[in-house]
């Protein structure tokens, strides 16, 4: 589109379009997780015995992952600062740290999943069903769907970061560092809700 | 032509009356709105009124007409809500005195009836379960029949049009409702939630009988049943 006429069509408000769009996307994502969390909470209140199941989750790995995600949120803020100063090298460095944070999170998560599956707690928990414990298997269904969906968002965030790192290396789309950061904060925020609900409440 | 099927329950007439009351409000609103819509189409055609009036409707002087109509609509809505509320409570809560208890279990694609046995209590060893197509639920007339509604597989609907009662049967839940039939006869029960290939054939009956006939039916049912258990 011709840029020389662009000034004529701007509305009074000066929020960049990308940021505005991403705010709406984030709001939509939060409603999706909101629906999951509400469903989980209603069941949790109905079945107090789920706290025994929650005791099988590893609070240590959960807490570690919380710290990792919070740190990676900090690094992405630094990346944004660097990008604002047009310092591509620094921004790339900080974003690499963030992607590494995501990677550590996923490794922790897979270690955790492995342990739980070895103990017999799977998506459908057939071993629990053999003992006649149908209700408790639903806790694990919720556990896997919530953490699994969240992990998918972590992976999506990492992919977006890597794409943007390639783009800013070529010297374009520096403003997208901020957008990736906003998305990463959302992923972090959702985890802040999931951690107490699934790991701490026992 | 009758609008509703024959009403045979104690509370059915109240639902019918509610319909007619609502219809009065609806017809008034319909006639008034249709007049408001069609009058300018005849009166204010381009040929009759070549120049339109400049009215923005943003002044209270004009907008008050819409507000008056809205308040009238809100008022009639709340009149309906006020009138219906007692009927709703009556149907959805248990009657003061339960004369007969039965169990109704929906299953793909039939309604199964459980009679409480000689002790009159459901969930005891002497319950008799009738699981046959078109077996008919026998109930006495002029008695409060309280039923426990369950489902074995998927969501079904229990619809007894002649009493105006409808309730979904939800698997995993026991829902207690009641009816009181005032006239002898055989009435359709139909399933109102889509439930598979034979949803269209899923129906059974309620057979409302006089006290004597009902007593005769239960006596023979229970004696046959005790005979059967004894011989086993």
């Amino acid at each position, binding site marked *: *589109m011709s840029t020389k006429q662009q000034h*004529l*069509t701007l*509305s009074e408000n000066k929020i960049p*379009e990308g940021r*505005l*769009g991403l705010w709406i*996307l984030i709001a*939509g994502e939060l*409603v*999706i*997780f*909101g*629906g999951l969390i*509400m*469903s989980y909470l209603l069941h949790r209140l109905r*079945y107090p015995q789920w706290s025994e199941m929650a005791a099988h989750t590893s609070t240590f790995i959960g807490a570690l992952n919380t710290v990792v995600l919070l740190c990676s949120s900090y690094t992405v803020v630094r990346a944004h600062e660097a990008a604002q100063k047009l310092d591509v090298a620094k921004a790339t460095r900080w974003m690499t740290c963030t992607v590494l944070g995501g990677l550590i999170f996923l490794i922790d998560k897979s270690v955790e999943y492995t342990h739980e599956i070895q103990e017999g707690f799977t*998506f*459908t928990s057939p071993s629990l069903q053999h003992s006649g414990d149908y209700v*408790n298997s*639903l806790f694990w269904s919720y556990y896997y769907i919530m953490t699994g969906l969240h992990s998918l968002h972590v992976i999506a965030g990492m992919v977006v970061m890597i794409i943007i790192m390639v783009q800013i290396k070529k010297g374009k789309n520096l403003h997208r560092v901020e957008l990736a950061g906003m998305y990463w904060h959302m992923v972090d925020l959702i985890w802040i809700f999931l951690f107490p609900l699934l790991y701490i409440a026992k | *032509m009758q609008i*509703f*099927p024959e009403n045979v329950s104690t509370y059915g007439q109240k*639902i019918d009356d*509610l*319909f007619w009351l609502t219809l009065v409000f*609806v017809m008034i609103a319909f006639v008034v*709105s*249709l007049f*408001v*819509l069609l009058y*300018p*189409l005849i009166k*204010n055609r381009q040929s009759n009124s070549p*120049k339109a009036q400049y009215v923005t*409707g*943003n002044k209270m002087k004009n907008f008050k007409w*819409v507000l008056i109509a*809205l308040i009238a*609509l809100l008022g009639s*809505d*709340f009149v309906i809500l006020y009138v*219906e509320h007692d009927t*709703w409570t009556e*149907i959805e809560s248990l009657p003061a005195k339960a004369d007969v208890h039965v169990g109704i279990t929906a299953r793909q694609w039939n309604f199964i009836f459980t009679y409480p046995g000689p002790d009159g209590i459901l969930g005891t060893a002497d319950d008799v379960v009738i699981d046959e197509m078109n077996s008919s639920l026998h109930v006495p007339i002029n008695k409060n029949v309280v039923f426990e509604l369950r489902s074995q*597989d998927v*969501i079904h*609907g229990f*619809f007894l049009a002649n009493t105006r*009662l409808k*309730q979904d049967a939800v698997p995993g839940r026991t829902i207690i409702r009641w009816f009181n039939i005032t006239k002898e006869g055989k009435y359709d029960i*139909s399933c*109102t*939630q889509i*439930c598979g*290939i034979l949803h*269209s*054939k899923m*129906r059974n009956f309620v057979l409302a009988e006089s006290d004597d006939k009902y007593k005769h039916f239960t006596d023979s049912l229970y004696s046959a049943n005790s005979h059967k258990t004894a011989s086993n």
Partner: protein
Amino acid sequence: MEMSTHQQSFWNKYIFSTDHKVIGMQYSIMGIIMAGVGGFLAYIFRYNLAYPGQSIPLFGHLAPLQYNAFVTCHGMIMVFWVGMPILLSGLGNLLIPIMIGTDDMAFPTVNMLSFWIFFVSALVLLTSFFVPGGAFGGGWTMYPPFSAGGYLNRNPDFFKALFSGTSLMILAVALEFVAMLMGGINFVVTTINKRAKGMTAFRMPIVVWFLNIASLIFMFSVGPLVAGAFMLLLDNVVGTGFYDPNRGGDPILWEHLFWFFGHPEVYVLLLPALGVLAEILPVFARKPLFAYKPIIYLALVSAVLSVLVWAHHQFVSGIDPRMATFFSIGTILISIPFAGIFLSFMATLWGGSIRMTVPMMWAIGFIALFLIGGLTGLFLGSNTFDIYAHDTYFVVTHFHYTLFPDVFFGFFAAVYFWFPKFTGKTLNAALGKLHFWCTFFFFNGTWFLLFFNGLHGQHRRINDYSSFSLINMEPYMTFEKISTICAILLILSQFIFLYNLFTSLAKTKNPELTKNPWHSATLEWTADSPPPHGNFKVYPEVYRGPYEYSVPGEVDDCYAQNVPGPSFENNENL
């Protein structure tokens, strides 16, 4: 504008275009094609209802499971693949950028992607008719456990379960939601950021307001259902028990998640069509829209209330009776803003100088039919009468009296109104009027008598009423036959429209005649006909609201938005 002279290949211009007008037309055409599919399904099961068990012309014998699948897919298609693309995405893409005076959407590439995801979703849905076991047949509400855990066509084999009708239906709906979410983000960002100079919020046409409110309602109500659909898919494919009561799950949870979206969805469909009325009525009454600002406030109130009424679909599903009273009150309250909007539309006509053109006839027909649909809602909003009427043809007829005028009358009003602008060609008015009267008459013929069937206890989704003595009698079986004959004629009437469309498209363009044929004040009529890629040669500047017709003291009865002069905004007090 350099783009207009730039030569583009056929593919870039008509298929993978990022031009909002082309995408809007792609959505509308896709909607018309899917309406053909939905209409054909309706013809098949309507024929079966009138003549159960008989062989159906153009189809053959209809099995009970096919009947279930066809009524389900008819509902799904008409709501998600006709109503949504035509009203929300089609109109939104065509109208929003050009009516706020800009060149294109904020994210044109996302916009193109949105259409192609929608296209794939339609293909997935159509594929589901041909997989083993057939298309999904559990009702458009998809209540589990019937829709999950093996009652329909779950297979222990993972891939067979994934490619069953049920899973494909969930997948298709999910893809469709993604497409609509992308479109919705685009609409809102475009409207906030790309308005022309002087186009303040309260100078935007109502249709732009309503499309945005509808998008926001959609985006904030669909989330829980996305989560719920994911759970349902896992129940079907992996064998989890989220909705299985034997494993602690709860079928009622799905009902809540579904209707939390499902009820706001009807307002998502209604608001854009109401916006179309708001554009058409003032033009042909030559009068400002009555109560412009109050209408916007009423729509915002209804958007908030729309997420508070969902459980009125569950009055007989075993929810707490006290909760039902709360939702009954909510239902009553939400009827108020919509009644206010319709009354304001009718008040626009009073004291006007009315031209009965083809778009105006569709607009008036919309209001007249919706009046019946809206007022019968008064019966159903009352929870006590709903005990009897729930899941009967009274409900089915009620929502066809709301959604048919909404989707089809709203769409046809828009087509006859904006067709000259976006194609540079004109539709035949005489054929348009014939099309209107046939549609209006046969629609009423199809549905009005079925109110009586519903009141006599005819329940839904039954392929053969011979088992039910209350319905298998006269005159109700005759009503079924009348309904079927009228439904067939209703479908045939649409060929008048298609004929009109194709013969008009074959004409040569007439830019002068189609630039502003209705003498309308909004910005799209100031662009060339058809508007080039980029819409305007010079971006317009806006000086007043969109509906300044018959201003006292002016010779011209249309004071366009982009003509310098007074704003007329100082004498408002609402």
